[in-house]
């Protein structure tokens, strides 16, 4: 009996130990922040303290820590960000308009004062004037699996909104405002890049408890749940709590209007000013579409909150950005319904909740994994809900869809750069073309090859495996290969890691009447030739003009509507098809379904034997009339 009781007791202890075990969290939560900050709306300044709890989850000791101090990007025109931005800095040109962040004091949990150990470094470009990354030598290393707690007192001067963050009159968009850790990697090195014009962010996941004090008349919104909101005298204290996120941003203004809806268990809050009231319904509709799509193509949105901000007039530069559970979109007063920029930016930024927010790739080094994949999702959502041909602009004589837009940007620049490169190393508009537009075309081409169902499965698997973690390009390719059961490295080697141009062309199509038979033939051949006296010798030449190789379909149509379809592996430079038939060829087409959206020239994909005079005449008339109109306008002026 005693033994039985011992067993029962042991089982009970085991069961209780099971229930006492903490619930598995979404992320590793190795970088958590407890921040208390006060906004001085007059001085446009934040002052506060933060407690960072960081756990070393690698097998290497950390002898120092690295901090992002991104508000220093707006400190002076020698910062890497502003040097790269170029152009006019008029917006920042007054003393009170520059922004900066200063660490007043930093101590560890053993009360070691580390303030003097702080040094600025510039790992990306050796720009000694850049103050956006700091290294702090620790008093003792943080061993694998151990934690360190850092107490930091800091002051942040907000800049006039130049890009993403800052103030405009009484409106505050507060992002990149507190000292934030970089990512300590498996190799024992920190990944902590400077703030660049063309780069975004990379951080570890954790829990954020943020308390903000603002003037009592201000309305506040931002990342996470608002736990409490208390007015006391002239001050309002708002407490936020958010889990499994890697950044925190918030916004404040006395002029905000707020509308909330609940969709799929998430409280969606739209923050806007009165001029943008006409966009409320459109914004909610767009975000609902996006949520529906992501639900089936990646997974359910797991957070309870989502805040969307339409920045007020004068602060548009705060728009079009993503932060965990908080996005900034952008709209205009009474923007016509057939110009879908509000929808587009809302859908895009919502998508970043997945590709950046939950799947936290390194945005500095492999921006295509968030911007590119997200743009692909944006294009699918916009096309699905707003029409493929006119998902962005739907005017009578100007219709722009997502794919047309992406191709228009990409096709003239195919060889200019490649997709897989650190985002700050692009020149000109390369970042936008190769991190946003080209990946859209690349992924859409892949979808056209493998099928929509497999593509959906790829993204569901990728999201499931890598949510709340830091995947890289190879992890994505690995999933593509695993889900499809085929090796697609050849595809990514050509279009992701390199910049090979894809262009298949119908070089020529000819049909010539066969000459009368002359010479020595067998009797049976003679009979046959006599029977088919109108035979044509037709030749179709297909040319692989670009360096990239893809298997392609070839369609050949004869003038009696007969058609032939061939599959060509596309490897050789030329492919010749010859026929002797009693019909002439009407036209030939390579990739007739336009599956290969990376093909840099669709016009040369097909070729008729004869010129389309009606179409070229129409072009001529239109062009002549256009110039005539210009000249007539001038005549009326003179």
């Amino acid at each position, binding site marked *: 009996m005693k033994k039985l009781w011992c067993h029962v007791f042991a089982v009970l202890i085991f069961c209780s130990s099971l229930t006492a075990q903490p619930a598995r969290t979404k992320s590793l939560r190795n970088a958590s922040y407890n921040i208390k900050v006060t906004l001085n709306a007059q001085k446009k300044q934040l002052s506060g303290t933060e407690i960072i709890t960081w756990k070393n989850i690698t097998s290497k000791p950390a002898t120092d820590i690295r901090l992002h101090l991104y508000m220093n990007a707006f400190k002076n025109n020698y910062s890497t960000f502003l040097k790269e931005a170029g152009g006019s800095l008029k917006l920042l040109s007054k003393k009170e308009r520059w922004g900066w962040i200063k660490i007043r004091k930093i101590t560890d949990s053993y009360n070691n004062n580390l303030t003097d150990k702080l040094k600025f470094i510039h790992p990306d470009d050796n720009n000694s004037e850049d103050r956006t990354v700091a290294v702090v030598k620790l008093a003792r290393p943080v061993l694998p699996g151990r934690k360190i707690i850092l107490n930091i007192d800091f002051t942040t001067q907000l800049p006039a909104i130049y890009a993403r963050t800052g103030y405009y009159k009484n409106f505050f968009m507060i992002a990149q405002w507190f000292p934030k850790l970089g990512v300590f990697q498996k190799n024992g090195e920190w990944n902590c890049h400077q703030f660049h014009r063309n780069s975004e962010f990379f951080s570890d996941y954790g829990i954020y408890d943020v308390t903000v004090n603002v003037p009592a008349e201000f309305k506040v919104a931002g990342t996470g749940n608002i736990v409490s909101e208390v007015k006391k005298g002239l001050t309002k204290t708002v407490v936020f709590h958010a889990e499994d996120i890697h950044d925190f941003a918030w916004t404040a203004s006395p002029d905000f209007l707020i509308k909330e809806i609940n969709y799929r268990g998430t409280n969606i809050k739209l923050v806007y000013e009165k001029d943008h009231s006409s966009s409320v319904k459109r914004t909610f509709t767009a975000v609902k579409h996006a949520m529906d799509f992501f639900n089936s193509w990646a997974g359910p949105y797991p957070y309870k909150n989502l805040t969307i901000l339409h920045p007020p007039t004068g602060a548009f530069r705060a728009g079009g950005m993503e932060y965990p559970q908080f996005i900034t979109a952008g709209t205009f007063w009474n923007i016509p319904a057939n110009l879908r920029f509000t929808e587009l930016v809302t859908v895009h930024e919502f998508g970043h909740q997945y590709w950046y927010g939950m799947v936290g790739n390194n945005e500095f080094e492999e921006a295509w994994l968030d911007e590119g994949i997200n743009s692909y999702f944006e294009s699918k959502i916009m096309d699905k809900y707003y029409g493929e041909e006119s998902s962005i602009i739907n005017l009578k004589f100007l219709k*722009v869809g997502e794919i047309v837009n992406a191709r*228009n940007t990409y096709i003239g620049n195919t060889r200019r750069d490649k997709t897989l490169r650190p985002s700050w190393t692009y020149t000109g508009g390369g970042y936008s073309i190769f991190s946003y537009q080209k990946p859209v075309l690349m992924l859409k081409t892949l979808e056209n090859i493998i099928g929509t169902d497999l593509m959906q499965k790829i993204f569901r698997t990728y999201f499931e495996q890598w949510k709340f973690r830091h995947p890289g390009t190879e992890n994505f390719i690995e999933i593509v290969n695993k889900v499809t059961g085929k090796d697609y490295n050849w595809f990514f080697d050509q279009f992701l890691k390199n910049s090979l141009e894809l262009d298949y062309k119908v070089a020529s199509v000819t049909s010539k009447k066969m000459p009368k038979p002359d010479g020595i033939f067998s009797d049976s051949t003679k009979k046959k030739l006599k029977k088919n006296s109108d035979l044509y010798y037709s030749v179709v030449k297909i040319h692989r003009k670009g360096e990239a190789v893809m298997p392609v379909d070839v369609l050949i149509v004869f003038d009696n509507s007969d058609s032939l379809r061939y599959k060509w592996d596309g490897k050789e430079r030329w492919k010749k098809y010859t026929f002797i038939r009693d019909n002439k060829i009407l036209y030939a087409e390579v990739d007739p379904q336009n599956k290969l959206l990376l093909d840099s020239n669709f*016009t040369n*994909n097909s070729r008729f034997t004869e010129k389309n005079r009606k179409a*070229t005449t129409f072009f001529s008339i239109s062009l002549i009339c256009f110039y*005539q109109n210009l000249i*007539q306008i*001038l005549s009326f002026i*003179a």
Partner: protein
Amino acid sequence: MKILYKSVKETFYNMKLWIFLYIIQIVPALLVSIPVNSAFARFAGKSAVVDSIFNGNIFSVPLMEFNVYNKDILSYAGNLLPLLLILFYFLYLFLKGGIIYRFSERNKTFEFPELMKKSAEYFPNFIKIALVSVLFLLILFLLNIPVSILLKRLAGDSEPLIVLFLFCRILLNICFLIIIKAAFDYAQISTVILKKKKVFKSVKNGWRFFSQYPFKVLGLIFYFFLFFIVFSIIYYLINMLIPVRYAFGSIMSILFRQIWMFVKAGLLLTLISAEVNLFSEYEIPFLKWWYGTSNNQE
């Protein structure tokens, strides 16, 4: 309306002049279009996608790709066009003296040598008048700077006000441009009809005529604007119905569009004729009364 009716009749009476104006308007258009057209035919003429240009969307595949892959020819056209427009401006300015003279001498048949002779006679003065008009345009441009600053301040961050003020500013600018255009049209007319040799006197006459009969002058322009709008709507409605995808439709489209261009050239001539008639009807009796004589020439 009486003046308008008379002017339409005179335009038809000067059919040769009308045809001549139409021809000189189409020549520069052809000069720019021909190389672009042939490049387009080479690039996309045999492609299956070329049909999509019928939908009129500038982002259709052949237009978009033509734009990307034919930068040389497009930049050639882009450089040639402003040059041709400048040349055309001077050619038209040259001819305008002759055209005004033609309408001032009623019931005479159009003769090409006379047009050239009179054009050459008034051209130097017309150039000078054009230069003075540039001064007025410059003033208008400069006035826009403080006005836009003021409106920006008044609108503040209110988007409805920003849009409203923008439209108001555009509308005001159009009104001022019409007034300047009208005044300088009458300056040109007074040069021809009153045989004024001094440019400033012509300009003064133009402005005086405008200030004396602002409603008549603007009313005339308003009527023309109205006709233009009505004709444009009719044109676009009919043009939309033409099935350009078919051979017959293509030919119809060519003819119809060129008829429209021809009508617009006629409208321009009618406007000049109407302005000449208005000036003759009101200014000459006024000058007769002013000087007590019909001989008011310098």
